[in-house]
């Protein structure tokens, strides 16, 4: 075999091998961009700068929710060396098995974690962190990271404010691209409703690091860093003092108070009892079990979520509709013989009061029979072909007061209540098989009517405004925070403004007639405040009647409209009226003049009366 040219073949082979190398290098360096991205990820570390969350103020500038410093304990599993587990557990105030479990988990996920740091413990209070910081050198791989958490200077409006907690995977999936594991977000109340404004924007500092995750220096001297943008502050319509006072009055009772400024629709106080103490909000995880196992459901915001029969306060609505429809005139009198008798021996009972009585007196004394006549007259008008048409017309007018639908407040999880229509009764009794007497309990706010305390407060504000209301809302427009324009548009009812003063006169007399005159809400009287109110005693199938009261004051140019609803509280005058009256006095005068009444209300404990699941 010839040996000539063999060196040429070898050189050709060398050329081929070198081309193979260069080709692969070319594809790595020029054709494939993924390695550059990997390199960036490899060598830079993004340290997230968490923005401070916006502060929540009350209407007078009092801080309801602020921020304070806490620490997260981070760990870089690759840097951890043998350490005294028990000592770390003691310092961090956790169970030693917790640390062991965590370390076991990191070992299992070590390839996923790699050189990263993971959060082992969240929101460690500053005192605990200081203790840890002193002995940190004993625990290589562990470090603390500052984080601000919520702080509640006044104990007002736990339910209202809502809580902030770490997002879970479901939450992250629901808001694609906005959150990452470890972020916090408002979960309920204002924190949830105004999450976008409050949360601010995260920033980051970029550092170069080596493969052992040691930070070497800022990347490009920090020019690529992004500072965190703090969240916007939120000003609420709440009056912190009033809110707090309401919570004190509602202690050991189940129910709600909703106070609205009639001329704006701003919610001054929104109490749901029993509620959540703000101390629990700050560390919701710790109290979560306690809260969720409480049979009285403190998370449940009764003010907007509980639907009750409104009781006698609803007579005001029927009276106004009667006036508008022309079937009622203020001077019309009806008899009441301890109730309204209809059909063969049926009777809708009433208490003892003078008879016959006119409209003002019927409101003042809360006569049931009077409104049976009124409702019957409304439903059985000649202009309607049948009672079904009458009922639907009545329903439409009722709903113009906001009943039977969501008011559209900016408060999350508001419920609509319900107002029956002809369909409701057609389903129950069959078409044509019912008449106005079948539905007669609607006249006094019983039966198939359900409304939330918010609806009642809104009714009160509507009457105070003589025929229109502003959608109740809890956020005030402030710098950088806008509110929807629906909150500034008056919502008119289908009842003419002219008719309202007639009803208001009755409400004034209910409160201000003086003792012995038969006014149901005499207890709510406060000198010079001109409170106008209406009591209600709503039947509760689960025990004692519910105590209901709505009122506004003063009569001219009202400043506050309020609804109080106390479950199993008995007569409207027993609990709801005093509580509402005290609230009005507190708000308008800044102090109360009836310590005996205040004490009685604060100390009353109705919890044993309340039946729960």
């Amino acid at each position, binding site marked *: 075999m010839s040996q000539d040219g063999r060196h040429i073949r070898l050189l050709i082979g060398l050329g081929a091998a070198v081309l193979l190398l260069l080709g692969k290098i070319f594809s*790595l360096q020029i054709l494939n961009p993924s390695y550059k991205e990997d390199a960036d990820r*490899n060598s830079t570390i993004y340290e997230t700068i968490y923005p401070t969350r916006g502060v929540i103020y009350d209407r007078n500038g009092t801080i309801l929710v602020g921020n304070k410093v806490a620490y997260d304990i981070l760990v870089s599993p690759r840097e951890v060396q043998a350490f005294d587990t028990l000592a770390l557990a003691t310092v961090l105030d956790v169970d030693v098995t917790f640390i062991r479990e965590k370390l076991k988990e990191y070992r299992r996920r070590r390839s996923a974690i790699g050189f990263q740091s993971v959060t082992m413990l969240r929101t460690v209070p500053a005192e605990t962190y200081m203790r840890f910081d002193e002995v940190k050198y004993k625990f290589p791989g562990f470090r603390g990271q500052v984080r601000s958490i919520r702080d509640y200077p006044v104990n007002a409006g736990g339910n209202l404010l809502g809580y902030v907690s770490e997002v879970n995977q479901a939450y992250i999936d629901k808001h694609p691209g906005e959150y990452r594991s470890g972020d916090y977000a408002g979960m309920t109340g204002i924190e949830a409703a105004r999450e976008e404004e409050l949360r601010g924007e995260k920033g980051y500092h970029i550092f170069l690091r080596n493969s052992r995750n040691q930070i070497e220096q800022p990347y490009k001297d920090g020019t690529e860093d992004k500072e965190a943008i703090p969240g916007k502050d939120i000003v609420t319509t709440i009056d912190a003092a009033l809110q707090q006072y309401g919570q004190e009055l509602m202690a050991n009772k189940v129910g709600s108070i909703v106070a609205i400024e009639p001329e704006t629709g701003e919610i001054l106080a929104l109490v749901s009892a029993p509620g959540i103490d703000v101390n629990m909000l700050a560390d919701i995880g710790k109290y979560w079990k306690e809260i969720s196992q409480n049979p009285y459901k403190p998370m449940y915001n009764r003010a907007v979520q509980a639907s009750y029969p409104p009781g006698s306060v609803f007579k005001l609505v029927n009276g106004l509709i009667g006036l508008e429809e022309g079937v009622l005139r203020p001077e019309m009198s009806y008899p009441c013989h301890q109730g309204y008798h209809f059909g063969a021996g049926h009777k809708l009972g009433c208490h003892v009061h003078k008879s016959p009585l006119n409209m003002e007196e019927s409101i003042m004394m809360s006569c049931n029979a009077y409104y049976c006549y009124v409702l019957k007259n409304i439903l059985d008008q000649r202009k309607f072909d049948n009672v079904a048409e009458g009922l639907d017309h009545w329903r439409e007018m009722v709903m113009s007061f906001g009943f039977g639908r969501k008011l559209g407040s900016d408060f999350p999880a508001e419920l609509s209540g319900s107002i029956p229509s002809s369909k409701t009764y057609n389903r129950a009794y069959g078409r044509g098989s019912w008449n106005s007497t079948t539905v007669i309990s609607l006249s006094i706010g019983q039966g198939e009517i359900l409304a939330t305390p918010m609806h009642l407060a809104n009714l009160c504000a509507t009457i105070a405004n003589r025929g229109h209301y502003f959608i109740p809302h809890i956020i005030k427009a402030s710098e950088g925070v806008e509110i929807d324009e629906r909150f500034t548009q008056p919502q008119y009812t289908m009842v003419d403004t002219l008719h309202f003063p007639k009803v208001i006169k009755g409400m004034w007399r209910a409160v201000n007639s003086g003792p012995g005159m038969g006014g149901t809400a005499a207890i709510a009287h406060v000198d010079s405040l001109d409170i106008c109110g209406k009591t209600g005693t709503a039947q509760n199938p689960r025990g004692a009647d519910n105590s209901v009261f709505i009122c506004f004051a003063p009569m001219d140019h009202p400043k506050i409209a309020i609804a109080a609803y106390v479950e199993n509280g008995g007569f409207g005058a027993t609990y709801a009226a005093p509580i509402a009256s005290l609230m009005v006095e507190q708000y308008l005068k800044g102090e109360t003049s009836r310590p005996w009444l205040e004490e009685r209300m604060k100390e009353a404990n109705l919890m044993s009366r309340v039946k729960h699941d």
Partner: protein
Amino acid sequence: MTELSQHKRKSIDWALIGVYFLLVLIGWANIFAATHTSEADSILDFSTRAGKQFVWILTALGLAAIILFLLPARLWEGICIPLYGFVLGLLVLVIFVSSNIKGSHSWFSLGPVSFQPAEISKISTSLLLSWWVSQQGFRMTRIRDFLICCAIIGVPMLAIIAESETGSALVYTGFIFVLYRKGLSGWWLGLIGLVIVLFITTLTTSPYWSVVILIGVLVACNAYMQPARFWHRMAICGAAVLVVSLLPSLLEWLSGMVSARMDYLTNRIWVPTAGETGKYFWSFITRIRPLYVILGGAGVAIPLLIYWAYKKKDTFLAVSVAAFVAGVLLVFSTDYIFNNVLQEHQRSRIEVLLGMKEDLAGAGYNVNQSKIAIGSGGLFGKGYLQGTQTTFGFVPEQSTDFIFCTVGEEWGFVGCLVVILLYVFLIVRLIMDAERCRGHFARAYGYCVAACVFMHLFINVGMTIGLMPVIGIPLPLLSYGGSSLWAFTILIFIFLALYRDEKKYF
């Protein structure tokens, strides 16, 4: 011998020395880049690797000067046998006395200095092999001469494998190029290539595919060598294999047809239409199993081929059949070799290389980080000392085995191209100079040096870019480390001395 006229002008090849210098300096600069920290430190700080490398470079240059100017060039041919014996002794000794460095037993530790006899062994093996193939009357085709070549290469290889330095041993396979140049049949090169291909195919796909490739290569070789006799043999073998492999399905089909026909005759139920018959034929084709084909081949084709080879005294055919049988044995024993002969870390590195196992934190970590470093370099690189991957220690062994990453990241494709072309120049220059030598010893030795440099270059760079498994051998002249730098300096400068000495003969 061609171009006799040029021989007269030979002296020291300064171009070769120039490339040597360039590579050493590039290596030094990149070692500094790979190990420097963010604090300003000097390339001459002797506590750092760059500083130490400077010492190694100076001493290497001293060695080079001694070899080139003090020692007589004829010395090397004279001492090659005792040197080989001495180094072999060290190679064996080191197995027993060395400390364990990263699982291998290949380092002598003498106080602060440690060195690897495997590096010197390249020199002694090159010298002895060159001496042997340059003996008067040496013929590669003579089996005894060839086996002695194999022994010269194989014995130190085995010793190095026993030191658990399989990577370094792999370099010795490069001497096959020298043997090729000295007359070894090109078929041997092809054979080794084929073995590697079969090995990889078997591990990544299946032994059956390897057998298919094996058959394909052997058939192609026979077609190339003996086109006259090839086609009718192929036709006969093919037909035989087809019949045998189809036989089981054929029988099955026939029995089905017969039973259906019988069924029809007795019960008058089924009348096969043309379409149905076609469908049956198709299903019968798909019933052919690779196993049948192989059995058919083994049962019919191979005896047939052996018969022909014997009758016609056709050596090539006989060798082909033998190669086939050996190949099949290799393929089916690869699994065994892989799981029982290779060590755990070698196995996992091969698995990662072949994409059989994704383990970026374990065995794949080095390669992945290295690819990221090189890949992030782009066309022009990030600039000297600006590399984030190598500077911050993502790439392990970055100043020694993975020094090429620093080049790739900081100098980009252009830098890689320049460095590789410098090596190509070095190798080509070695080969061309060797070709100009009249002395057989110097010429063979030149090829040995070129082969060593090439093997190191290909394996090392191939490893950093994921073409080769992670085999811990240095990049010649660039990687940090005295043993390696000294060894290649001596290797190259002995050739330069021999080359200059050529001139004195004429």
